[in-house]
């Protein structure tokens, strides 16, 4: 069963298209990473899925229903982001109690234990928390609610490295015990790639790739060697990224269409073949130019 079905989704904000004809499907009980640059439309997409904003054109269905103004979707989706507006009059404990009253699967014990583990004072108010602690509290809300579709938008923003690690581990443990559909948008792909099953890569409001992480890791390879030799080898290949190293050395990332023998011949010609990490590949794929920031400084 598809949890989310999206067809030609477009959202226009004052003239610019935050989402531009986006189409994809997300299956049940998978952890999907929503990856893209700043302004690629990740948050907009999550907001539409959560029913906070309405699409301009196209169709999006969550649990076979349009999310905007749907009580069923709202009851089965929780959306955590760093601009959450929580009632200021309630302290953390009261906020958790309120959440418990709304979500039938709420795990009170887990919430209390997490709150205790991350040393959050139950009598404190959400607005008095630091950025990282707010994110930590959001995560507690998201995990304890145990709703069929959990959306995390930049869940680790502001968290320190230790808390980030704890978060990934907590998420995985709870997911294994209670499988559910989770979408995480994050800039730290290298940290979460072991957690993810699928990756949805968006660029300028469009779907670039939607595939399992394992496939993405094999999707491209990096070639390094003499510029002239590399140029010869990559002539008819799909070049994703190029970088010059030193005077006549370059590093080029191409689509992985190499066969075993081809790879051997390349190595014999003095080319180093290295795998490209999913994280790096996503950066290359979502970049506007083939040369990255170097192009800005190379005036010639």
């Amino acid at each position, binding site marked *: 069963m598809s949890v989310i079905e999206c067809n030609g989704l477009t959202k226009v904000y004052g003239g610019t298209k935050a989402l531009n004809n986006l189409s994809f499907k997300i299956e049940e009980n998978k952890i999907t990473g929503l990856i893209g640059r700043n302004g690629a439309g990740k948050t907009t997409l999550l907001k539409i899925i959560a029913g906070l904003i309405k699409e301009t054109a196209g169709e999006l269905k969550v649990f076979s229903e349009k999310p905007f103004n749907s009580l069923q979707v709202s009851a089965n989706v929780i959306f955590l982001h760093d601009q959450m*507006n929580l009632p*200021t009059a309630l302290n953390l404990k009261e906020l958790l109690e309120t959440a418990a009253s709304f979500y039938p699967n709420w795990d009170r014990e887990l919430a209390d234990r997490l709150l205790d583990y991350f040393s959050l004072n139950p009598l404190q108010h959400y607005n008095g928390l630091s950025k990282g602690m707010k994110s930590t509290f959001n995560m507690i809300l998201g995990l304890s609610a145990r709703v069929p579709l959990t959306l995390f938008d930049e869940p680790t923003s502001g968290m320190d490295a230790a808390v980030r690690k704890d978060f990934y581990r907590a998420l995985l443990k709870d997911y294994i015990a209670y499988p559910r559909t989770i979408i995480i948008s994050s800039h730290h792909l290298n940290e979460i790639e072991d957690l993810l099953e699928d990756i949805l890569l968006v660029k300028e409001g469009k779907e670039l790739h939607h595939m399992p992480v394992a496939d993405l890791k094999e999707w491209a390879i990096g070639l390094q060697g003499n510029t002239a030799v590399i140029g010869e080898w990559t002539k008819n290949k799909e070049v994703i990224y190029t970088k010059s190293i030193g005077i006549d050395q370059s590093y080029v990332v191409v689509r992985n269409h190499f066969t075993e023998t081809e790879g051997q011949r390349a190595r014999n010609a003095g080319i180093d073949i290295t795998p490209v990490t999913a994280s790096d590949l996503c950066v290359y794929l979502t970049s506007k130019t083939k040369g990255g920031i170097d192009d800005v400084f190379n005036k010639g």
Partner: protein
Amino acid sequence: MSLTKVSLTNVVKKQYVYKLKAYSQVFMSLIFLQLLAVFFSLNGVGGMAGGDESIDVEVKYFSSDYVTAFTMLWGFITAILITTKAYRNDDFVFVTNRVSSNLSNAVFLLTASFIGGITAMLSSYLLKVIIYYFISDVPIKSTTILEAPLELLLGIFSTFLYIFLFCALGYLVGTLVQISKAFTVLLPAAFFGGLILDGLRGKSGAIAYVFEFFFTESSLPLFIVKIIVSAGLLFSGAFVLSNRLEVRA
């Protein structure tokens, strides 16, 4: 994970309970405003004085009219307040849609008006006590609760309805402002412009007529119908207008 089924009434109920707790600040402002109004009333709301060489007569009227007026204003402002982003977006953290959010707001305002109505009416007793002990030793002619319990109940009920009417008006005004910030200028301009225009023409216009329509009704059933229908219309207007509002930070 299996899907949860929810009903509108169930969600509205939960939201109402949560709002009573989360919006508790509005009751603090109610107490503050009513105390302020009691303070203003200590000088009397009206009176006359006269006499000759051997006698001085001073007549002062004390009433809780100020308190009631302040409470109506409080209802209006509270209703505007809960339509603002800070409060509206709170709902969207938990389970909600726009209909349930509006309905629970309406029920909350109904409760708030009721509490406001009771405290406004009871404030007249506070006023009497303060005047007796601190201002004048002259006992004030007044009816006790036991003498005329029905009058007090009637007073509470009609005050409650007036406050609720103001809440409904405030809710619509607040919703309009949420739709476009232009209304923050347009609505006061229309209201005060209308008053000034009426003053210049020397005739009573629409605003005066509206006041007359609600505040001079002598038949209780008719008064109840007027308020319920008007508040219903104001709320439905707000519901329809806000049903497409997006949640933006």
